């Protein structure tokens, strides 16, 4: 392989038709590298059962071999610059593949482990008086729906009105710039800090150790409002100005223009952004641990101040994993996986519905 480079490199590769690798060659090299890698691993694995074959390591070595092969071949056949180009192409494509692996792995492990307990018991029982096997997460599912629903009721009006202020009234003045900046910063507030904030407010009124569903909802809205503001602001901004001006020209007041013209035009996009915001915060765990607490019972009253703990799905997963039942820890883990799968299904459904709404109900405007 290295023989030709020693002498023939003297010829300056100046012509425009200087050797280029044929079009499909990267794929061929990739296949070749994988074959070599798997052959090596198969030889090393000879004698032991096929299941012992380390597929992950073989794929990894195959990728490394591919990157080396493609660089060396291109260095020989093309030029150093093209070799660098091909090397970077290979590395960048690999980065994308690497990022997809955890997603596939998470989905696969959660589905395969969670299906075991996706039975009617899981969706009709709470954990009250359940010590070993059995039991379910109906209290956690209700808790998640109630807390997240309350959070949505609090944060959607505030978030929507704020975005209306930013787009329609702010006109880029200093206050609206400040609000935009702090909303952006607020998207990065850790959920546990939001939980601590709400807890320290409520201890002043109710004394230490207070746990209530509404506290979780308030902490969740601290996290959710910025996401709603950002999403609906973007949607309001793409409403064409001609629509507003046409409405003003007919003598319609500004507030009626916003309600009758701007909001109906952008309602599909706003609904989508709200659904995505809910999907994003429904899995937040840390603040719920501090504000809503842990219970084995079904508790539907979010405003009860004594024994107000509610279970929620993320906390249920955390609790079953961290503090498994002593008699049968496997049953706890199975419940944790099943609850994780339930949570994942809810999140994915919200995502799909949200994106579907904007796809099917978006007003037919010819772009901006």
């Amino acid at each position, binding site marked *: 392989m290295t023989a030709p480079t020693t002498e023939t490199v003297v010829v300056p590769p100046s012509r425009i038709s200087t050797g280029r690798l044929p079009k499909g060659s990267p794929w061929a090299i990739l296949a070749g590298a994988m074959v070599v890698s798997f052959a090596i691993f198969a030889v090393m694995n000879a004698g032991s059962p096929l299941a012992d074959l380390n597929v*992950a390591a073989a794929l990894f070595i195959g990728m490394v071999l591919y990157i080396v092969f493609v660089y060396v071949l291109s260095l020989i056949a093309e030029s150093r610059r093209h070799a*660098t*180009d091909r090397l*970077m*192409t290979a590395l960048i*494509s690999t*980065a*994308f593949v*690497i*990022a997809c692996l*955890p*997603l596939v*792995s*998470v989905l696969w*492990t*959660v589905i395969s*482990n969670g299906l075991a307990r996706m039975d009617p018991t899981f969706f009709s029982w709470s954990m009250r008086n359940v010590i070993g096997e059995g039991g379910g997460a109906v209290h956690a599912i209700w808790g998640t729906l109630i807390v997240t629903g309350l959070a949505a009721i609090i944060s959607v*009006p505030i*978030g929507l*009105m704020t975005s209306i*202020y930013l787009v329609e*009234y*702010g*006109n880029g*003045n200093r*206050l609206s710039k*400040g*609000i*935009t*900046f*702090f909303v*952006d*910063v*607020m998207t*990065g*507030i*850790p959920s*546990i*800090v939001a939980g*601590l*904030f709400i*807890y*320290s407010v409520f*201890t002043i009124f109710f004394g*230490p150790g207070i746990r209530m569903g509404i506290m979780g909802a308030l902490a969740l809205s*601290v996290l959710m409002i*910025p996401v709603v503001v*950002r999403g609906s602001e973007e949607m309001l901004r793409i409403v064409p100005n001609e629509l507003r001006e046409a409405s003003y020209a007919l003598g319609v*007041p*500004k*507030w009626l223009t916003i309600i009758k013209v701007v909001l109906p035009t952008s309602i599909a996009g706003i609904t989508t952004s709200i659904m995505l915001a809910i999907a994003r915060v429904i*899995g937040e765990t*840390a603040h719920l641990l*501090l504000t809503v*607490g842990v219970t084995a019972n079904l508790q539907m009253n979010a405003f009860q101040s004594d024994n107000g703990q509610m279970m929620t799905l*993320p906390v249920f997963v*955390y609790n079953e994993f961290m503090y498994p039942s002593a008699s049968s820890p496997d049953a706890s883990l199975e419940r944790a996986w099943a609850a*994780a799968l339930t949570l*994942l299904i809810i*999140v994915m459904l919200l995502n799909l519905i949200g994106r579907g709404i904007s796809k099917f109900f978006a007003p037919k405007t010819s772009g901006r």
Partner: protein
Amino acid sequence: MSTTEKAPARQAPPEGSIKAKKRPGDLAFSGSSLGAGIIILIVLAATAVFLVVQSIPAIAGDADTNPILGGENFWSYALPFLFGTLWSALLALAIASPIAIGIALFISHYAPRRLAAVLGYIIDLLAAVPSVVFGLWGALFFSGFLQPFFATLTDTIGTWPILNLFFSGPVSATGRTVLTAALVLSVMILPIMTAICREVFLQTPKLHEEAALALGATRWEMIRMAVLPFARGGMVSGAMLGLGRALGETMAVTMVLSGSPIVAFQLLQSGNPQSIAANIALHFPEAFDTGVNTLIATGLILFIVTFAVNAVARWIVNRRAEFSGAN
């Protein structure tokens, strides 16, 4: 209220000022939308005030009666946790940044245009996975998957001169080490970093790219000469936003690690530094009295650090006026 009325006045033409009629509906609507905006600022300020007020008994109070400190100075209690937070977050950042830039380049400049939207959606799906699911996956599957690799690492590069500061044994038998936590964190911060990088890469002036290509640059040379210099600020702020997320992430670290308040740089051993957020999550449920204040005080430190990181990142992004700031 005064600000809303000032804004149109400032923009009104100087001569023949035609004042719009003030209707009650208008006033109510503009007032309530302004109020909503101000509520957000108040919430942010209240977060800082309440955390500070609740922290004072822990920092200034008597450490001997404090059930968590037990006579220890508050700062010597909090600093190891701050180290654990920064250490795991910086590791995650170091792992995720090159990959995020790679993905963003792949979507913006390598993938076929029709495929790019789908690929972006796949990365957004990663952001939708709840953190507790990542924690469960990291603790029960990923750590076991990585453990053999960790064992190999300690046997090989763990004995090399400088690298043994980080990779030396004895290797953790469960694989639940700070490196595993950092890897899980890096998966969780990939989507936001990718989203920001992708957006700035797409904003590169087309003429710059075409000029580079017309001069005979290969695609990588075009990216290096036209795209990356243009996007440098955006990449930095994307990385800082990712850092902010990693600093505050609680569940992945809590569930993957069984940490302790130590300052250690070893990545693969069974003794690992704990992060602030994980420490609060573990000890808050049974904390009482001034112990709660102590945990809130550590939370205040976390709030200040994440606030600063996020504010600087947003400031860098906002200098680019046309940037939409999605996410």
